């Protein structure tokens, strides 16, 4: 109750600051943008599994519309609505109140600053059909066994973020962000985060516990040439995900992005430590260790090279994977130590302005056999049409 009052006071203060800062612009400027991607994923190795429920073998469609409104030089709003596998969702609904470039308050619903990929999560902004495994939200093979990636992207949440950017001289850009958001959710005594609860209508805008998740990010961008720069970033997030605040999760990440003229090299690591309840030991596949037996670690990483061959044609190669250590529920197909590696080769070609066709082939290597097919190695192919305006 007390924390609710504090939150109300904080929001009222922020709204008052917003009103005070809102120097009227000569005109309210609006910009509408959107994107859509239709992807066909062909998984020849999963065909024998007869519509394996944990693999999309067919079409997926996602589109998004975004409205950015500049009320003044200091206050703007962003609204983005997406439609995808989960139906309509609010990806962005926030206000930015900017005191200076170095100090901006973001309040509402947004994806908190974490990692490098999240800025490019829109399918029109990345050249492969799939996101890196660490950020996967459902296209990965065996997604249910793995409970998706380390931090499915995007991960819109409700809260407040303070962020800013500062150029140190003419060649170094420093960015920071610190935030408090609702955090991920799950039922009491769960063994992992239930990402569906972050998007189901029944719990959409309501926090499941009284404790926010806190996090932050720092990044440095070095201008190493007229057409080259290097970004190094560190991110972290900590909170509890069950209604009783007994089970915590902590996510850390490190990223490096090197842009050398027409070549982009991106590397990123994410690790999530997730505590789970061991009050009922019968639900586990393995004997619960008395020490350090109440959490799992999920690591994810990728290395991606994107080479523009012509202004309209990009060639991409990516190696990514995840490694999970820790007990699992008795019915799980995963082991105490499970891994998945994926090797991707793809191209993206701009047919028209704003319209790209994407092709990619992915070779998967799982440490565990598929329960239906007995396979450890899988193959998938994507063809997608992605447009933006």
């Amino acid at each position, binding site marked *: 109750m007390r924390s609710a009052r504090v939150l109300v006071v904080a929001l009222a203060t922020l709204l008052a600051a917003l009103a005070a800062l809102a120097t009227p612009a000569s005109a309210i400027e609006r910009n509408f943008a959107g994107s859509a991607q239709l992807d066909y994923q062909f998984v020849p190795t999963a065909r024998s599994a007869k519509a394996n429920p944990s693999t999309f073998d067919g079409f997926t469609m996602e589109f998004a519309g975004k409205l950015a409104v*500049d009320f003044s030089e200091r206050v703007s709003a962003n609204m983005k609505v997406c439609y995808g596998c989960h139906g309509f969702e609010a990806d962005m609904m926030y206000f930015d109140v900017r005191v200076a470039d170095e100090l901006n308050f973001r309040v509402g619903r947004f994806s908190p600053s974490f990692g490098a990929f999240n800025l490019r999560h829109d399918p029109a902004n990345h050249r492969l059909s799939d996101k890196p495994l660490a950020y996967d939200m459902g296209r990965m093979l065996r997604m249910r066994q793995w409970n998706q990636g380390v931090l499915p992207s995007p991960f819109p949440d409700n809260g407040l973020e303070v962020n800013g950017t500062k150029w140190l001289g003419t060649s170094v850009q420093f960015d920071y962000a610190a935030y408090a958001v609702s955090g991920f959710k799950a039922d009491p005594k769960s063994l992992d985060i239930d990402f569906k609860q972050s998007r189901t209508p029944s719990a959409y805008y309501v926090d499941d516990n009284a404790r926010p998740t806190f996090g932050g990010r720092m990044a440095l961008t070095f201008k190493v040439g007229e057409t080259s720069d290097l970004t190094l970033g560190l991110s972290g997030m900590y909170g509890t995900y069950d209604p009783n605040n007994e089970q915590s999760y902590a996510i850390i990440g490190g990223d490096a992005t090197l842009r050398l003229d027409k070549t982009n090299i991106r590397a990123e690591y994410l690790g999530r430590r997730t505590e789970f309840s061991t009050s009922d030991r019968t639900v586990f596949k393995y004997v619960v260790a008395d020490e350090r037996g109440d959490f799992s670690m999920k690591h994810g990483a990728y290395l991606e090279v994107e080479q523009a061959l012509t202004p309209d044609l990009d060639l991409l190669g990516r190696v990514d994977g995840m490694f999970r250590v820790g007990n699992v529920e008795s019915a799980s197909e995963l082991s105490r130590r499970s891994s998945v590696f994926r090797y991707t080769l793809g191209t993206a070609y701009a047919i028209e*302005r704003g319209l790209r066709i994407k092709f990619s082939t992915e070779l998967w290597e799982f440490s565990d056999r598929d329960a239906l097919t007995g396979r450890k190695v899988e193959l998938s192919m994507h063809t997608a049409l992605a447009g933006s305006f």
Partner: protein
Amino acid sequence: MMLRFLTRSLTATALVIVAASACHRGEGLDASKLPENIRADYDVFAHKCSKCHSLARPLTANITDDEQWVLYVNRMRRQPASGISYPDQEAILRFLRYYAADLRRIQAEKNGGAPVPAHSGQSPPVPSPPAPSAPPAAPAGTVDGGGT
């Protein structure tokens, strides 16, 4: 079987790209068709703005108001790791003002009337793309437009 699928998919990819390139128009602008004094600015625009999104985003935004471009580019410059410094912003805005003027000219030709002003109540009609001889000045009331 894996090797067969891989070979086939790569061959199919190559064929589709070859077929598509026969009838393509491309994502950005043809820099060789731009005025010489705007090409360097376009290069900065194309390089910086393609870091996070496709060039189609700004090029199809249909923004003809210079003031709106200032707000837009300011918002982009403040994006984390944008790599857009103030001098970069000046160059980007020089190109976008040229581009907006061109859009206004096209719109005026379509409407058969006077071109739409650069921004409400400020600029006179621009019949053709202006030469970006001076750095873009921020519109009145804009705090950090134009990189100043």
